[in-house]
């Protein structure tokens, strides 16, 4: 099947104040997103994530390169019929109630009155805003605005859902609900493309991720391929004395226990026997694999080193 999102050699620079200087926001970005994927666009603030999303929605014109949604230009109304979008820190017409707001967007998707009502009810329930239908949006908390924004993005049953920082500003319960919603959309066969700097959330749900730093693509692929799937090191917590000859780095915890980091399971056995021989006890053993955060920090560290070298 052909890609839902196809980005080729995308570049965008913004001119500085009064046209002096320029700042490259996205630099030679190429990626494609297949149907049914959850794709995470990750990067620190200012990496070019939002600019990329804006080019996907034709809000910003690329300097060069191409963007295609369902094989069409994002300026094509037909392409936009098939997507739903939630911007970062959304702000909606605050003089409308939740139902009026969703009704407006339903009209823009040419849905009939009965169809709009049915879908609005379903979307309101899905994002957990039942009972707040008649509340003006100006009285909504940040989390509730995010929810109504999500309802707006999914009510017309789009094939592609684009979310800009959908977890930011939400409490842990809200983040969990958004994650569950994204997974439920995937189960329905939707494609989800979202940007985030909250790596744990991305790690839990993404099929594939791309890491962007200063506009450049630093890494792209399945999480398991990018970060090693097997344990890279083992952390051991020791209660009691730790003999001097034990390998690995050590750190004394506030509660008096010692945290030993050893290179792998092979190195574990000598550590355990040395500790028990010295009268200590093993309080815990944790195998650690490289997390998305480690990968992320490593890639960004590498990017910075390259930058300094050049």
């Amino acid at each position, binding site marked *: 099947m052909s890609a839902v999102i196809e980005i080729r050699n995308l570049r965008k620079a913004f001119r500085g104040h009064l046209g002096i200087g320029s700042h490259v926001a996205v630099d030679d970005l190429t990626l494609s997103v297949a149907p049914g994927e959850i794709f995470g666009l990750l990067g620190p603030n200012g990496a070019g994530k939002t600019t990329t999303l804006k080019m996907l929605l034709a*809000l910003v014109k690329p300097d060069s390169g191409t963007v295609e949604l369902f094989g069409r230009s994002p300026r094509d*109304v037909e392409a*936009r019929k098939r997507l739903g*979008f939630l911007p970062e820190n959304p*702000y909606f017409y605050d003089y409308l109630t939740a139902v009026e707001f969703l009704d407006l967007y339903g*009209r*823009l998707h040419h849905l009939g009155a009965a169809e709009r009502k049915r879908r609005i009810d379903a979307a309101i329930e899905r994002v957990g805003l039942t009972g707040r239908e008649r509340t003006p949006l100006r009285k909504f908390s940040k989390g509730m605005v995010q929810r109504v924004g999500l309802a707006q993005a999914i009510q017309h049953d789009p094939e592609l859902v684009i979310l800009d920082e959908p977890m930011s500003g939400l409490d842990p319960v809200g983040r969990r609900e958004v994650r569950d919603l994204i997974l439920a959309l995937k189960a329905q066969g939707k494609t989800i493309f979202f940007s985030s700097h909250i790596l744990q959330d991305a790690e839990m749900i993404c099929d594939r991720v791309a890491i962007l730093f200063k506009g450049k693509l630093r890494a792209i692929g399945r999480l398991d391929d990018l970060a090693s799937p097997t344990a890279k090191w083992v952390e051991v917590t020791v209660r009691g004395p730790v003999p001097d000859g034990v390998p690995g780095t050590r750190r004394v915890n506030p509660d008096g226990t010692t945290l030993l980091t050893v290179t792998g399971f092979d190195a574990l056995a000598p550590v355990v026997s040395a500790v028990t021989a010295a009268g200590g006890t093993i309080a815990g053993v944790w195998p650690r694999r490289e997390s998305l955060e480690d990968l992320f920090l490593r890639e960004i560290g590498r990017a910075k080193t390259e930058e300094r070298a050049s």
Partner: protein
Amino acid sequence: MTAIAAVALNTFREAIRDRVLYLLLAVALVVVAGSRFVAMLTVGSETKIVKDLGLAAVSIFGLLIAVFIGVSLVSKEIERRTVYTLLAQPVARWQFVAGKYAGLLLVLAANVLVVGGSVLAAVGLLGESPWGLVPAMALIFVELGVVAAFAILFSSFTNPILAAVGTFAVYVAGHLSWSFDLLKKRVTTGAGRQLCDILHAVLPNLDRLDLKADAVHGAAIPAGTFAAAAVYGLCYAAAVVVLACIVFERREFA
């Protein structure tokens, strides 16, 4: 069409939920009601004063609404980033601008109906037939349509303050466009004369849409004059809205 109507309805809804509109309407109605008292203080025709002040109220308060709501129509959506989600829908950019303009026209029509209706009632209560004022009011609405088109044009590329200044400037210059002809006769150099010609041609001739004096004095307005003025104003407004669409089409929302 659905998209334009949806945006227009939302724009209308925003305006009628804004207290500023009611404040302006209330002041306009006070002026119309108060015109009877002003009329008592004057010698001569009472109804002339009521008509004069009444038509002025329809025009001036309509102008204030067109400018103050119009200048922020597009820029507010950009500033508050509501435009991002809206343009992510299957809505063409020109449909967004056209919808915003149509919504503002609805607000202006409501204003003309309410304030104008009360003027007609006030004149009727004085025992005079008020219907001669209707063509003048219709052209006031057309004039407001032209002003609103400029407001939305300026709003599509600049901030509300500059847009308000620009719109008022066009309004004033539009009522003084005859003066460019006069000025041309006094200017001797070629460039100056050309500038006068250009300004005279480009700026709207809003005086053409002003039949207030004729209406107040009860002069019959020829149907041809009325129709020509209305067509002129409508075409002018349409051209400005098209220009606003072109400007907005090229905008980026960084």
